[in-house]
């Protein structure tokens, strides 16, 4: 993905939700995307499959298995979607059409992309459901008859049904119980390993991403501010935001009487500060931070950050 930019048309002018983001995911690897609400991470997911409707605009290039997405239109875009790249949304609650049975919603994408006999289709669906640990009898159920965890499993089964090269999961477990959450992430990791599917997992929970992902990317105010191997980012963060955030999270494995605090509040995309978006909250900010946004600089192998004062240890 190169220079992806997504803009929302609002009443008070265009708002840049995703600003010149670049990254790549290797085959079979899981990339984690972390960021707070309104940092543009969900817009990025939509933009990658060109799902933002006009008047919102997407520019840049996205390659899935060598095929460019943003330049596509109409039938060729429809053909690429789901077959090469699929998506799982945050709230499986709203991602199902309430008036259709699970099986017809699962069958829809398969039917749209392949010529398959009804018998094969049924077998495929049963296999998929078993793979996500759901009794195939539930394919005759309506979405509201499933629990949140089951819906999310079905959503993942659905996203895997055409064996895509890339699966984008936008907060796939946020609404779920801790236990279910872990079960579903284990499932996703297993599917990724078994089928060589690359995944982009979006979450606000860094501790979750650090366990699940091979690489982690941090976004702040629509821009990438840090990217690198999961271990490196969590153990040796370069960007002050990442570092402070990691220190502010309470842990079960240590006793503290007070937590490290990041002053101020996250910015809204509609009124971003000049220069580095994080500078008003940054303890290390200098004059140059307030003027020009720092570029992404590789500091340690594949570990890069956009900061004038990276915390190299």
């Amino acid at each position, binding site marked *: 993905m190169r220079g992806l930019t997504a803009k929302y048309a609002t009443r008070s002018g265009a708002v840049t939700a995703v600003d010149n983001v670049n990254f790549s995911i290797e085959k079979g690897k899981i990339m984690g995307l972390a960021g707070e609400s309104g940092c543009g991470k969900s817009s990025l997911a939509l933009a990658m499959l060109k799902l933002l409707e006009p008047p919102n605009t997407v520019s840049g290039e996205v390659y899935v298995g060598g095929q460019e997405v943003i330049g596509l239109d109409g039938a060729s875009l*429809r053909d690429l*979607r789901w077959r090469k790249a699929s998506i799982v949304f945050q709230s499986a609650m709203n*991602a199902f059409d309430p*008036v259709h049975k699970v099986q017809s919603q699962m069958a*829809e*994408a398969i039917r*749209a*992309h392949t010529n398959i006999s009804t018998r094969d289709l049924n077998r495929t669906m049963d296999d998929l459901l078993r793979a996500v640990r759901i009794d195939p009898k539930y394919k005759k159920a*309506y979405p509201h008859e499933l629990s949140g965890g089951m819906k999310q499993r079905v959503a993942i089964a659905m996203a895997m049904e055409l064996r895509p090269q890339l699966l984008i999961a936008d907060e796939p477990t946020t609404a779920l119980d801790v236990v279910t959450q872990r079960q579903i992430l284990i499932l996703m990791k297993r599917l990724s390993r078994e089928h060589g599917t690359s995944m982009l997992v979006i979450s606000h929970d860094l501790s979750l991403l650090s366990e699940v992902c091979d690489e982690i990317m941090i976004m702040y105010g629509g821009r990438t501010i840090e990217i690198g191997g999961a271990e490196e980012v969590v153990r040796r963060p370069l960007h002050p935001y990442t570092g402070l955030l990691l220190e502010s999270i309470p842990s079960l494995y240590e006793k503290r009487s007070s937590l490290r605090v990041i002053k101020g509040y996250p910015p809204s995309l509609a009124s971003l500060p000049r220069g580095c978006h994080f500078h008003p909250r940054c303890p290390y900010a200098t004059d140059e931070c307030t003027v020009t946004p720092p570029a992404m600089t590789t500091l340690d192998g594949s570990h890069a950050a956009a900061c004038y004062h990276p915390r190299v240890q």
Partner: protein
Amino acid sequence: MVNARYLVSRAIGSLVTFFVVLVLNFVLPRLLPESPAQILASNARLPQVVAAQLTIKFGLDQPVYVQFEKYLLGVFSWPPNLGVSYSFYPSSVLSIILQRLPWTLFLVGSAVFVSWILGTLLGIAASMRSRSLFDNSSLVGAIVIYTFPAFWIGLFLLWFFGIEFRIFPVFGAFSTSSTGVLSFLSSAGLHAVLPILALVLANFSGYFLLMRNNMINVMREDFVILERAKGVSDFRIVLNHIARNAMLPVFSLLSMNLGLVVSGAIGIEIVFSYPGVGYLIYQAVTSHDYPLIQGTFLVISVAVILMNFVADVLYGYIDPRAKP
């Protein structure tokens, strides 16, 4: 399967409503300062003696509870006894209504069906091009038509198509000169065109406005984005997902509106002298035929209550979430 409890609760609701209608129908004439018989007599310009005789004949000299018992026994006997009409004497109220009922059902039934389909299709079309010229003009058009009384739309159509251009017949439900089944049917069809058109014009805009609104709301739902991500064709997304969901509240409106439409047909039937229940009410009102007025009210109410019940039950099948 629709839950039996749901059926029972709806049935009880309908029965309670029916009972309220029964009581209203009984109490209203008796709430007046003058006795019904006196009103009957004065309106019919009959001498005072007749009023006294009427009082006894209708049992109005008896205590209220006895009258109520008699009234209920009449309604619940088979065939129901709704009294005898003055203006069509000696025909029973029930027989007159039963004679007229099929015409109203035919008229209202086809009008409801056509306006529902028309409003829904137009609503889908307008929502597809939201804020376009087509959308805006159909919106304004629907609002303007909505505010005209149904009967006036009927009058206008009658004048334009029936009198100026003489394309359609304007009086009654069929031509008395028609012989044979085919010619009767075609004549009945021709006679119904203008009344149905008037009813459709007066009623489709409600469905149109609701459908358009719902479509625009459903389009914003997450599952629509997911359908697009799946690579499903736009045509299929619009019809099978957006329209399908947007239709559910429209169906509720359909059952809500049955009462309005049956009433609305009264004006139209008067304009076209269409021999339905609505026109019968008019005749009953102008000839002060009180048993007939009450009888028609009862029958219309029962018809609407029944239709609502059926619509409620059907809704349980249409929206999977309404099932347990």
